[in-house]
């Protein structure tokens, strides 16, 4: 059983060269993968390797140049109208740049309840209560539900994006660097929330991140991208424990670590 299947997704951007000659740039090159129900697929890799572009294509926010997309057993590559609406109800996205994805003129309450309104779902309780509950879940102060996005910090704005995605009980949530602006303790809390939702309601996640330690904690499978292609795709344990591709090995070797000498001294003091 698969929830989402991408086959040969390709995206080429036409750039206007000198003299109007068009140069083409292949941002995503024949990428295929699938995501099962209740599964978390992490996508890691080079900056500019096409992760966000892939995310936009599987969220149907951008049409692929080539390739096809299946969701819930249905081909949605060219979905329109009712089929597209069904797809939209099932798939939510948390975007990489939090402020650009929140309407600056709407209050948080309005942002959080808008998805319900679009899809004609009645919230349990009043709108305000619903928004406040969502805010609480992601560790935001519910008293701030009438503030505007600009009145929040970067990490707080990011959590508004997460709360919005969770508002409608989607089947698949695509998280593009969704926890990168959070401090480690809030991050742990949000990740715990995502996992609990996955256990309870069977959400699937496509989780794009640069923090490999986080990826290792929450992903079932990992896809490594470089220069528009998936260079390695495997179980988390395999990719981290026994990386096959050269690029994956470089990546793992470059993960910054806390000065081990300092870390050791701290642990010793804790034990003492």
């Amino acid at each position, binding site marked *: 059983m698969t929830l989402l299947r991408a086959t040969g997704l390709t995206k080429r951007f036409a750039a206007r060269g000198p003299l109007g000659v068009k140069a083409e740039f292949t941002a995503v090159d024949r990428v295929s993968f699938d995501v099962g129900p209740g599964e978390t697929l992490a996508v890691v890799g080079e900056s500019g390797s096409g992760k966000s572009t892939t995310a936009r294509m599987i969220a149907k926010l951008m049409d692929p140049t080539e390739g096809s997309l299946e969701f819930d057993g249905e081909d949605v590559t060219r979905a329109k109208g009712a089929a597209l609406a069904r797809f939209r109800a099932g798939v939510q996205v948390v975007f990489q740049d939090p402020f650009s994805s929140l309407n600056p003129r709407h209050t948080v309450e309005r942002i959080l309840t808008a998805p319900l309104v679009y899809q004609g779902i009645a919230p349990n309780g009043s709108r305000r209560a619903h928004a406040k509950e969502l805010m609480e879940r992601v560790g935001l102060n519910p008293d701030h539900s009438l503030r505007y996005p600009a009145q929040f910090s970067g990490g707080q704005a990011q959590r508004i994006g997460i709360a919005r995605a969770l508002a409608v009980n989607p089947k698949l949530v695509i998280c593009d660097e969704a926890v990168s602006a959070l401090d480690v303790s809030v991050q742990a809390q949000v990740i715990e929330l995502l996992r609990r939702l996955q256990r309870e309601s069977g959400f699937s996640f496509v989780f794009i991140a640069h923090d490999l330690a986080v990826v290792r904690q929450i992903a079932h499978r990992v896809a490594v991208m470089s220069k528009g292609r998936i260079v390695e795709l495997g179980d988390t*344990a395999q990719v981290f424990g026994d990386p096959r591709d050269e690029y994956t090995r470089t990546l793992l070797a470059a993960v910054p670590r806390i000065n081990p000498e300092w870390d050791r001294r701290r642990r010793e003091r804790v034990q003492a």
Partner: protein
Amino acid sequence: MSDLLVVEDLTVTFPTARGPVDVVRSVSFTLGRDETLGIVGESGSGKSMTSLAVMGLLPKGARASGSVRLDGVELLGRPDRELRRLRGDRMSMIFQDPLSSLNPYYTVGLQIEEVYRAHRGGSGKDARKVAIAALQQVGLPDPERRVDYYPHQFSGGQRQRVMIAMALVCSPELLIADEPTTALDVTVQAQILGLLAGLRKDSGMGLVFITHDLAVISSIATRVLVMRQGEQVEYATAEQVFAEPRHDYTRMLLDSIPRIDDPLDEGVTA
């Protein structure tokens, strides 16, 4: 010679419907030339507001009190006209959210060039060369072509590197970097950290580096400031903060870092 940046008793206040709220309360720190101050802490604890206050760029309505001195000269309360000459030239800042911090209507080339031309003058041609070199320096592939791209044509990490290039173009003495590497993969991140460390050594640039990645802090910071709910809970050398943290919050932070070598809690093979 005096310290590059001295911040004393900095408080930032926002008027809200329920009366004034201090989002930064009595923060003090000192940054020497050739030093890196790492600021870490809770999301929403006032890290960005602290740096905006130093730059004199607080949002409308916010007020800063205390003292901020760059090279012995008080900055708080100075007219914008005078701060303008410093900003982008002697002190510059890399903002947290690169997409919204770049103007969607202009090519990144123009946005980098205009800093250079505002402070160094020179012809458009020179500025363009400088912009291309700056993009090259931050490891952006194909800079001669990408210099004419618009922000939306870049990936998240590429935009972040554009912001970095923009901040470095006039070789500032003070650079405030607000989460500058969150969208970078670890190899590019290492490259950027190397670049910043090099500038610090070669030209004595002082660096304030805000991040949630404590491993990064441990590798580049000389001193560390830990913030929580607008207050500074710990301020000490990096070694002290990491090896002998004094405050509970710092300890809690260090304990919650996900580590790449830890065994996994669900019993999957490590």
